[in-house]
């Protein structure tokens, strides 16, 4: 029974870990950029929900209707006016600009929200469903539903819409995409917008599950990295599988060894298959 319980918990949390990685993997795959500020984007998303929920007097989950568009816009503008400019100077300058952004964001959040631990409270935070001897937390189910529907929606968007096709084409070959009439600059901005929007979702999820601080970005970024590299850069389904593997490792390893297990997992993947399980 314990084993089944663990597997279910790992699976449910795996959705959240995949969500942490999915925004990062998009930027890797499409913009070909390592976004070191992604962790701070996630924390920013969490704070947005913390602020918006009491302000609008709604359930934290519903704040997504405000925070997701807001973060999309921020990502779009950020890429269009700042990161895109840095990318013209080369890969490393762009990497360092995102690094700069990460430390700026971290301290701006520290100034606004102080270093106190934060948590997004919901009425169902401690509720659980009993099935036979299994006890499944309602919160975990909510998180899983949010994550999986977001990732499914993103996959469908990439697959079936004009913009989605343009994004995939740009990821494949930027010059050829430009020759079919795609504005690469705009596609990059949209990709960053989506990435930040996914960070809003991920932020809400981690904020409901765990406590967070302005300085939590680093650890989220690292989780995102691990998930993304295990899954293969730029692969959305790979990210989902990797997220679930990561979730299992966390649940099995517990608070002390969970992270360590996943780091070791990552290093093994890197040695055996340096481009990730689903990498090409």
């Amino acid at each position, binding site marked *: 029974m314990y084993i089944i319980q663990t597997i279910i918990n790992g699976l449910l949390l795996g959705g959240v870990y995949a969500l942490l990685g999915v925004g990062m993997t998009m930027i890797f795959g499409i913009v070909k950029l390592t976004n070191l500020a992604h962790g701070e984007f996630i924390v920013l998303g969490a704070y947005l929900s913390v602020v918006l929920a009491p302000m609008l007097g709604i359930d934290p989950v519903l704040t997504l209707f405000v925070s997701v568009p807001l973060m999309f816009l921020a990502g779009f503008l950020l890429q269009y006016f700042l990161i895109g400019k840095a990318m013209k100077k080369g890969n490393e300058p762009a990497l360092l600009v995102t690094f700069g952004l990460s430390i700026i964001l971290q301290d701006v959040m520290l100034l606004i929200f102080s270093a106190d631990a934060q948590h997004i409270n919901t009425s169902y935070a401690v509720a659980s469903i009993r099935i036979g001897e299994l006890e499944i937390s309602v919160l975990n189910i909510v998180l899983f539903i949010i994550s999986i529907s977001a990732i499914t929606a993103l996959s469908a968007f990439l697959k079936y819409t004009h913009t989605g096709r343009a994004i995939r084409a740009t990821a*494949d070959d930027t010059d*050829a995409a*430009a020759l079919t009439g795609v504005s690469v600059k705009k596609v990059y901005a949209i990709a960053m917008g989506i990435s930040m929007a996914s960070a809003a979702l991920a932020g809400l999820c981690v904020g409901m599950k765990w406590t967070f601080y302005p300085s939590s970005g680093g650890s989220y970024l690292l989780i995102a990295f691990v998930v993304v590299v295990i899954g293969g850069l730029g692969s959305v389904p790979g990210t989902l599988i990797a997220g679930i593997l990561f979730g299992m490792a966390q649940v099995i390893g517990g608070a002390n060894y969970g992270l360590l297990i996943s780091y070791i997992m990552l290093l093994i993947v890197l040695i055996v298959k340096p481009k990730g399980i689903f990498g090409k």
Partner: protein
Amino acid sequence: MSEPILQVQELNAGYGDFSALEQASFSVDHGQIITLIGLNGAGKTTLVKTIAGLHKPTSGKVLFMGEDITRLSAEKIVSRGLSMVPQGSRCFNRMSVHDNLLMGSFPKSARKHAKETLRHVYELFPVLEEMKKRPAGTLSGGERQMVAIGRALMARPKCLIFDEISLGLSPAIIKDIYKRIIQINENDKTSVILIEQDTQRALRTADSFYVMLKGKMVLSGKSNEVDAEMLKKAYFGI
């Protein structure tokens, strides 16, 4: 109809200190096929990349249907009706043939006719319809060229540039593809620019020709009045 569809005037371009294109000029009339021939490294690809907006010129002018498109970005040039089939086909390898073709109709002007144009493309290359679900990366070289041509046609271009379309293909496939190009030119009245190293075939297909050498236009004329000796001298620079 007297005005040429594409006019390139004294175009200069380069990479850093290296100048790849010096004072290149040529023009294409409506419904005409022209060919640009020259050795490897003569600047042909730089020239068409500059026209298509993938490379920025240092000076000179490109006029398309009377409009100055010199500094426009590649995607704006496509939506004006000037498309290019890039060297090495450059399909979107991870996307299906169908999606590759749909990508071709990305410009707003082409999007509303997408269904109709797609049928047209599948008529021209029936083999593509049979394999429309397959990822482009799994196709053969010739099939990939067809996808690239089809993709360019989806934008409903008025002028189409083929950059070394026969590179790496077998003679039988080259012959077939050339047949399609002539078909495209005759049926849709699309102007065609062929960039080639295969001089003989290009000259047989084109109405007029330009020879490039070391970034300069060194010879031009009507294809049917070409002097073999002069062509050879211009081509090799001897």
